């Protein structure tokens, strides 16, 4: 029997709420907001409360997918990246930089978001950068 509460930080948004993930014999069984965290003082939003569910969800995407003939198919990272790079180049060449837009994410670090907007502005040449929370 191995029951633990692991202190961690929510990945959903930039607030950085702290909670404990309850782990019983290697399986996540619950989320408990950390009361001594100065960020969230024992409170969470509905997304934070359900972190333990998405981590183990069957619906979770674990590999990149490309839609082929109308169906999503799992592919390797190499194939996904090659495909994306080629499409970005083609769209930019045929329709111009502003035909491409970028969605940043709340689930990655500041540095990763910085890199993405840099790529959008410097490499692709567009300032169409928005955030997933607006979807």
């Amino acid at each position, binding site marked *: *029997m191995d*029951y*633990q*509460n692991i*202190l961690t930080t929510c990945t959903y948004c930039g607030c950085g709420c*702290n909670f*404990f993930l*309850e782990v*019983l*014999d290697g399986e996540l*069984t*619950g*989320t*408990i*907001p*950390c*009361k*001594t*965290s100065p960020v969230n003082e*024992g*409170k*969470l*939003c*509905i997304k934070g*409360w359900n972190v333990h569910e998405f981590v183990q969800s069957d619906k979770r995407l674990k590999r990149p997918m490309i839609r082929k003939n109308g169906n999503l198919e799992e592919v390797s990272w190499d194939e996904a990246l090659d495909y994306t790079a080629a499409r970005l180049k083609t769209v930019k060449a045929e329709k111009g930089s502003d035909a491409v837009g970028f969605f940043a994410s709340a689930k990655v670090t500041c540095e990763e978001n910085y890199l993405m907007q840099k790529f959008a502005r410097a490499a692709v040449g567009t300032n169409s950068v928005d955030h997933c929370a607006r979807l």
Partner: protein
Amino acid sequence: MIEIVRQKAGELLNQGKIKGFIAPSRENGHVAPRLFTRVEELSTLNLGDSSSEGDARYPLDKILITLHRKYPDDCFGILVRGCDQRGLYTLYRLNQLNPDRVIEVGIACSPGLAKACECLKPFPDDAVAGDPVAPEGQKAVEMVEDMDMAGRFEFWMDQFSKCVKCYGCRDICPMCFCNECSLECKDLVSKGDLPVDIPVFHLVRAMHMADRCIDCGLCEEACPSDIPLRTLYKKTGRIMDEEFGFTSGINKHEKSPLSIMGPAPDKKGP
């Protein structure tokens, strides 16, 4: 007080009477609920106090449910204040825990905490530490009762309108263990929509808590919108007492009048 608890938990572990002891623990600068399985670990034991008494209490009873569901034959020790023990009594009554598999180690709360909680039973039966103090008056409930009906309605609708539908009040509650929750029934509460259905969401929860809520106050502490949920459930509890002379978890073997088929039982209350 903490030394007595540590010693008691250590004895239970040493004698092999329990598989583990559930209590808060101070680690990494935080207070977290923990299952202590070895005596050496007990040095980090904490009573749910961070900067003041009882400010870092966690739903220990709920953790016990999780463990009991997977390991029904094992016996666990658990730190209880008055409210936690009321919770255990309620969970025994509702067949969620087996009293033969639980050893309670009780501490009485200080007069200050009892007052802050407006607690009806600020001590467990058979406390091993702390001096039991008398029950406190219910000022928060009386303040709302003193309003006229229109004022009361306005007060609660204002409060409920702050709700962000996080379900935190339900998720933290040690008395919420149902597999299917009415708050997720789409005929009562819409799914994926804000604002939340007011006042249905809050009143459904209040009604379901009527014979269960043990007034631990964890829901109110978890509410990001500072809705006085505890006052609301104290009120439903008070109605149960006035109508049926029943208060959840006060007496170990008392059945809930809401689970009895037939005419209402005679009043036993004051």
